[in-house]
């Protein structure tokens, strides 16, 4: 070992110079680092701070509670109720397969759901819950909760789901909600981010769909801090969403449920309208279906049963179905003639049982003929020839114009799906669509609501209410939104001669109250509640000459789908009419036998706000009506949707 000694100055000098040089370079580099630090931390700080926030803050949507739907008296028609589901968190579960095996001993697990859940679990982060069973009952939830220690990672979760307490009674009005589909998303431009929440429900048909904007509400947001792998560390803040707005319909639940029960399993439709303001009190279509099945996801078998049923339960026939109005159209022909001054109420027409128009015989329903008929008798006994004669004088243009005035052939503005506009044929229409010229025979057919004319039950109810009131009534379905009633303009008059209208109303009154009226069989004998109606029987097929010769025209002998449609429209009471009713029974046979009794029961139910006194019915009907009232009472739900045990 050599003790240090002072080195030679030449070496030391060079070393000092180079050490200073290198030291200087090092310090210079450090200065560079400092500048870089300044650039990142001072000059570009805002930008990086933003990126850091984006990194750590995740915005979660809080789905708003959907607005509820009530009837005019506040009865709940659509509400939200807690819906339970079972989630599994993979990282807590450990052996997922074993846990699911144990879980399936406790509650029934759907194979399909399970496969989907397993696939989702493989994809998502291990700490995210995956739903293995949706819409489970409270009973199942408690069973899982009790066994929680044996089921690591399994947690019940609660959300809100739509529920329709009155099952099928409002299926065609309120409609239903369902999970957002890709198809739904594709239709919307710039969709609400809410729609991307898994299992978020939106209105699919009916009021639920048409008032989606009000019912949905707006999403709340929750800002959460997440770490690098997306695990939520804590909630930073939360902004509550805006709950959806409640809707109140003009429908009277009690009446609607009654009508539904009364129509039963017939393929039929009925509309009850307040003919003072246009409020729809009942809009029914039968048979119906349970919209609750659609909320949770209907099974393929159930759905097939609905679509393959020839009574078409899914169709809202009262607004979507169009039918030849048959004799219920006769008021229009008559009113047009009166308004044009072509006839007076006293003028008579000779009915030999047919009318020959351009070498073709148009028959009256009564082959023997009615003899001399005036307006009142023509309506009362539904003499076809009387209207044929008027029609030939009027021409289709004036008939069609009157039909339009009374609300036929136009799509009324209601928040319901698939509203039909019906058909109010004109020369133009025939030339355009059929490419044919209008011929007098077409006018003759149209005058009795056959041929090309088509109308929905809703349009017939509007027509009847306009005849009853003389006002240009429009149907209304929404009474209030979030408790606020939208202002309604005063209903203008139709501008028809009141005298002429009175003649029509008297004719309708005679239909239901004159001994020879076609609706006499379904009369009311309480003076203040007597009906003014009109029967209609519309053919759905052409009667061939061969058939006519063979005489096979009895409805009962025909297969169901070829039978005539039965129609009845009426208003009541005759003084200060309150309600208008339209009933269509598809392939029901005659209007007087199949539709009129239903319309009478509905009218009385509406006027009495419940079961009418039995004394209102003619004595011969009372026993039958009492039995029917008992039967229907058992079918009707109470305010909470609970029904007697009679319903299957």
């Amino acid at each position: 070992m050599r003790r240090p000694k002072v080195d030679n100055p030449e070496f030391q000098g060079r070393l000092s110079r180079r050490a200073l040089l290198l030291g200087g370079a090092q310090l210079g580099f450090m200065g560079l680092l400092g500048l870089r630090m300044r650039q990142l931390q001072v000059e570009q700080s805002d930008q990086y701070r933003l990126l850091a926030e984006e990194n750590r803050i995740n915005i979660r949507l809080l789905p708003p509670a959907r607005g509820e739907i009530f009837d005019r008296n506040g009865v709940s028609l659509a509400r939200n109720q807690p819906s339970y589901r079972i989630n599994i968190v993979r990282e807590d579960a450990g052996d997922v397969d074993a846990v699911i095996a144990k879980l399936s001993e406790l509650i029934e697990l759907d194979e399909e759901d399970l496969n989907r859940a397993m696939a989702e679990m493989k994809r998502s982060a291990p700490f995210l819950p995956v739903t293995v069973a949706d819409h489970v009952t409270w009973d199942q939830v408690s069973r899982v909760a009790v066994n929680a220690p044996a089921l690591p990672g399994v947690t019940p979760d609660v959300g809100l789901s739509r529920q329709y307490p009155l099952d099928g009674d409002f299926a065609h009005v309120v409609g239903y909600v369902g999970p957002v589909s890709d198809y739904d998303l594709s239709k919307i431009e710039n969709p609400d981010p809410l729609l991307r929440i898994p299992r978020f429900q939106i209105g699919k048909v009916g009021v639920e769909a048409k008032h989606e904007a009000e019912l949905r509400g707006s999403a709340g947001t929750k800002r959460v801090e997440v770490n690098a792998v997306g695990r939520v560390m804590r909630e930073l803040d939360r902004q509550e969403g805006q709950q959806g707005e409640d809707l109140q319909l003009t429908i009277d639940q009690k009446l609607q449920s009654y009508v539904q029960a009364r129509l039963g399993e017939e393929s039929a439709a009925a509309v009850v309208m307040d003919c003072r303001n246009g409020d729809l009190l009942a809009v029914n279509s039968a048979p119906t279906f349970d919209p609750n099945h659609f909320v949770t996801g209907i099974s393929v078998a159930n759905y097939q049963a609905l679509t393959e049923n020839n009574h078409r339960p899914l169709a809202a026939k009262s607004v979507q179905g169009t039918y030849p109005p048959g004799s219920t159209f006769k008021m229009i022909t008559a009113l047009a003639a009166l308004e044009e001054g072509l006839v007076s109420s006293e003028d008579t027409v000779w009915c030999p049982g047919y009318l020959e128009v351009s070498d073709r015989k148009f028959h009256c329903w009564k082959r023997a003929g009615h003899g001399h008929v005036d307006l009142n008798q023509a309506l009362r006994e539904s003499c076809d020839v009387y209207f044929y004669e008027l029609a030939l004088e009027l021409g289709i243009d004036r008939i069609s114009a009157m039909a339009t005035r009374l609300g036929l052939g136009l799509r009324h503005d209601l928040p319901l799906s698939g509203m039909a506009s019906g058909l109010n044929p004109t020369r133009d229409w025939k030339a355009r669509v059929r490419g044919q010229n209008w011929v007098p025979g077409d006018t003759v057919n149209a005058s009795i609501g056959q041929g090309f004319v088509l109308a929905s039950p809703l349009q017939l109810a509007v027509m009847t209410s306009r005849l009853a009131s003389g006002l240009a009534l429009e149907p209304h379905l929404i009474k209030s939104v979030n408790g606020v009633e939208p202002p309604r303009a005063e209903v203008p008059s139709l501008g028809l001669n009141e005298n002429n209208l009175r003649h029509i109303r008297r004719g309708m009154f005679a239909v239901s109250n004159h001994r020879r009226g076609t609706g006499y069989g379904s009369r009311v004998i309480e003076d203040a509640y007597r009906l003014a109606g009109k029967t209609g029987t519309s053919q759905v097929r052409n009667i061939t000459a061969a058939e006519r010769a063979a005489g096979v025209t009895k409805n009962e002998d025909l297969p169901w789908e070829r039978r005539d449609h039965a129609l009845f429209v009426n208003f009541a009471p005759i003084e200060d009419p309150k309600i208008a009713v339209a009933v269509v029974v598809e392939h029901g046979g005659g209007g007087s036998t199949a539709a009129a009794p239903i319309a009478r029961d509905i009218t009385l139910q509406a006027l009495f706000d419940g079961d009418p006194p039995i004394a209102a019915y003619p004595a011969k009907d009372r026993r039958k009506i009492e039995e029917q009232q008992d039967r229907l009472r058992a079918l009707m739900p109470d305010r909470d949707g609970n029904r007697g045990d009679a319903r299957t």
Partner: protein
Amino acid sequence: MSYLEYSVKSVPSGPRKVLFLNWPLILLLSAIAGVGFMMLYSVAGGSFSPWAEPQIKRFALGLGLMLIVAMIPIWFWRSVSGGAYLGTILLLVLVEVMGSVGMGAQRWIDLGFMRLQPSELMKITLVMALAAYYDWLPPAKISRPLWVALPVLAILLPTALVLRQPDLGTSLLLIIGGAMVMFMAGVHWGYFATVSAMGVGLVTAVFQSRGTGWQLLKDYQYRRIDTFLDPASDPLGAGYHITQSKIALGSGGWTGRGFMQGTQSRLNFLPEKHTDFIFTTLAEEFGFLGGISLLGLYALIIVFCITAALVNRDRFSSLLILGIAATFFLFFAVNMSMVMGLAPVVGVPLPLVSYGGSAMLVLLVAFGLVQSAHVHRPR
């Protein structure tokens, strides 16, 4: 230069040596280690375990070792330099052999209380060997090609061994550190200029060759370079480290988010937050002021070392001090460049701050040598 006694004319002996230690240097090292403890406490979410506590213990051990090394005369250390260098080379070969005979890709030797990485030790023993070499070599021969080739081989041998591990960061540090010692020993400018020119040429060739028939690197290696040059091109892959690191730094701003308030590190967005990327946590939580302060501490250490080297008129001592200072500088300069996106991601820890036993102990022993050289300098 003694900070306590100016009148001493000869090398102190016995316990009095303690008075002649370079105390400012010790304080600076402790201050930096203190910053490290604080950051390790913070990145553990406000806990001494699992990082801060072992780090403190190791620092205490390292400080003790430093003092022991400092008390032993520098001429002893000079005499063992060659042996230390050869011994470390042997250790490097040993881990290489152990790795290949089935103990896994292991870079360390388990000493029981710590795992010694021979590559860490190599950085110091290489500097010692080079300093001893130039202390022995007559100044007239320094720039002769043969006498230049010898130290170059001494540098390249361990570099090749470390590169095989593979540890690109450390091999880079060995080459540059060794070159710096040679430069300060007085090797002629021309050698460095030639090597630098060749380096530039090689880099150019590497880039020029891309996509041609004589491509010099594999495709994935080019992609790594791309990622370094533009981290945003692969934000979730290889660029993730750099991107997240820059976000952490940048979001710190002037004064930072506050102690233990750094979201990037606390929420695990930062990779290797307790080791190579610990500086980003400091910069995020204490901002520009915090970062520049730490940089200042490092700069002071360099300044004090150069001063100590300049006042020391012993050739071995001066070169040793400057070599250790240069190695120390390379450590933090490469690390900081890396986290600031100025250099590719190579595994180089931030000296005295990053969690890790070998590096800290080796560094403190190295500063023990600096102290020994300082205490035993000729008066």
